[in-house]
């Protein structure tokens, strides 16, 4: 096993235990590690892999699979995916039965309510970082704005919106 694979496993394992509020909360840190610290790809390529993972079925954290695969092949894909998932799974399994007992404890509510705005900030940061690379002009900016409104305001299936956006682009309507 080479050192890149081990590094991938280590980075994603750390992300796993920092992902308060779900996988998207560590998107900014994932991008920082992959793009800025290790320089495995550009921010643009990162955004592309994220988009590809969104368009595929399954949990949205499949972006880890794609990053690992791009960096170190199949071993990298497994290292990144298992790194991102196993530590938090182990923790969840370890505390699952204790959790029920503290259902109404005030500290549990304080922790949940207190971390919620942090999660909001983290996911908003991830969104901004992605937008920075995927907004290439006023047309893609408008597309992002309209798609956001559709995701928030309607019950349209997300995949329909993603497919329509891809079709608009493929038809050459979003500019070069």
């Amino acid at each position, binding site marked *: 096993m080479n050192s890149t694979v081990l590094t991938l496993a280590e980075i994603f394992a750390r992300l796993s235990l*920092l*992902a*308060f*509020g*779900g*996988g998207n909360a560590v998107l*900014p*840190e994932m991008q920082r590690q992959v793009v800025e610290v290790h320089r495995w790809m550009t921010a643009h390529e990162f*955004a*592309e892999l994220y*988009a*590809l993972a969104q368009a*595929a*079925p*399954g*949990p949205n*954290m499949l972006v880890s699979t794609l990053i690992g695969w791009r960096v170190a092949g199949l071993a990298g*894909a497994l290292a990144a995916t298992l790194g991102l*998932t196993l530590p*938090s*799974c182990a*923790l*969840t*399994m370890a505390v*699952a*039965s204790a*959790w029920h*007992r503290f259902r109404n404890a*005030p500290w549990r509510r*304080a*922790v*949940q309510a*207190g*971390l*919620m*705005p*942090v*999660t909001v900030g*983290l*996911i*908003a*940061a*991830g969104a*901004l970082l992605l937008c920075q690379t995927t*907004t290439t002009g006023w047309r893609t900016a408008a*597309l*992002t704005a309209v*798609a*956001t409104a559709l995701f*928030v305001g309607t019950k349209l299936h*997300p995949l329909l*919106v*993603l497919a329509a*956006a*891809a*079709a608009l*682009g*493929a038809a050459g309507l*979003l500019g*070069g």
Partner: protein
Amino acid sequence: MPNSGLADAAAATPGLTELFTGFLTVGLLGFGGVLPWARRMIVEQRRWMSAAEFTDLLALCQFLPGPNIINVSAALGLRFQGLAGAAACFVGLMAAPMAVVIAAGAVFARYAEVPWVRHGFAGLAAAASALVLATALKIAAPLRGRIDGILVALATLAAVAWLRLPLLPVLLVIGPAGIGITWALRIGQPRAASGR
């Protein structure tokens, strides 16, 4: 494990094969978010858990770090079939989507330079950004009117997106601050007139 005592709990304990196939279906159907599909399969179709049990398990998985749905699958598998059950759920949920996404990545890498593929991908990526933006807006909705929560969210946003600080120190500072503020303003005051 203490039984939750809910009367409408699972009719029968699912075996390893059922756990695997249940989550396999969810993984393959779950375009643009797996959670609604998982809930439908677990609560409505296969009746492994009551709605209340599922909500409580989900709350745990949202409270702990990590991808929520993956934590749900592992905890559910563990409850019914121990570690082997957790593994069956996990592999069922992840294996097929991983294969699909790697295949899609390989195809994309091969045709990335074809102009209409590249342009189509620019559109897809813009919409994928919108999906994260929409998630942020949706989960921010309960912050309306909560000045302290909005400030904590903005501080996190600035530290991570603007200053590009590493996540661990940011969480070590802002996490306890957010919890402390919430405790001081909302929960640690039993006499405060709250909706509860």
